[in-house]
């Protein structure tokens, strides 16, 4: 019935399309949400999409598999650093402005 899906887990295209979909979801969230923490979560989604692409490329070209794993680990570590600083900034701004909504951060517009 659905036999066109046979072998989809052995095709690089499927993983890359999946990664593109996740990246697009993340970019939508980053552009559309008002809450600063939601925007940070969307950035995490985009970082993970890129990581999935790295791992998929590594898995489908065996000489690069270990390199892809190392790059993915480094990306995970830098994403952790980014999340730490981003959330600290959000909390510091929240302490002054009492709101997590980015469209009310207008101090530099006035």
């Amino acid at each position, binding site marked *: 019935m659905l036999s066109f899906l046979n*072998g989809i887990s052995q095709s690089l295209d499927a993983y890359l399309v999946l990664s593109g979909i996740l990246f697009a979801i993340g970019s939508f969230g980053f552009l559309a949400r008002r809450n600063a923490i939601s925007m940070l*979560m969307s950035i995490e989604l985009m970082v993970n999409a890129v990581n999935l692409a790295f*791992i998929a490329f590594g898995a489908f070209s065996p000489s690069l598999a270990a390199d892809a794993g190392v790059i993915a680990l480094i990306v995970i570590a830098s994403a952790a650093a980014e999340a730490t600083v981003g959330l600290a900034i959000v909390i510091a701004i929240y302490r002054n402005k*009492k709101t997590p909504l980015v469209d009310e951060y207008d101090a530099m517009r006035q």
Partner: protein
Amino acid sequence: MTLPPTIPLLGFGWNDLLFLVLAAFMVVGGLAVVLQRDIIRSGLAMIFCFAALAGLYVTLGTPVVAGAQVLVYIGAISVLVLFAIMLTQTKAAPRALVFQTQALPAAIAAVVLAVLIGLTVVSTNWPQQAATTAVAAADLAAKLFSAYTLPFEVVSVLLLAAVVGGVFLAKRERGEAD
């Protein structure tokens, strides 16, 4: 007892079923992160999405990265995000108006981006051989400490700087009320 090579009635293999289920979980979790009105729920959906992604890493033969994903993303970053949500949730937080006014153009742009990436991927002929074995942790470690020593050291300094900077930014000024 042995399983048949393809699933009866559906016509695709068991690995494909695993891939499809994990991919569906991941996409649904990601959509829930960006579309959910209640931000706590979108934080929980993020954990769900990252867990499915860790499963995909395992099926792609990198269990070490999957373990790091579970430890760092589910264990650390999601908890940090949930803490930040709880620190910044107020009674006045909007329930109804969670999207910016440019949400519709943003949705169109995201769909266009996904379609463009999909078309590019499908129309390119990747030189591919399917993965056979999983990457051993020893291979990964050998790479990490030989060819990638400099990035490793830079990332460790970056993490230290981020932790110090995070503490400095988030700590209360002396004598500040609240």
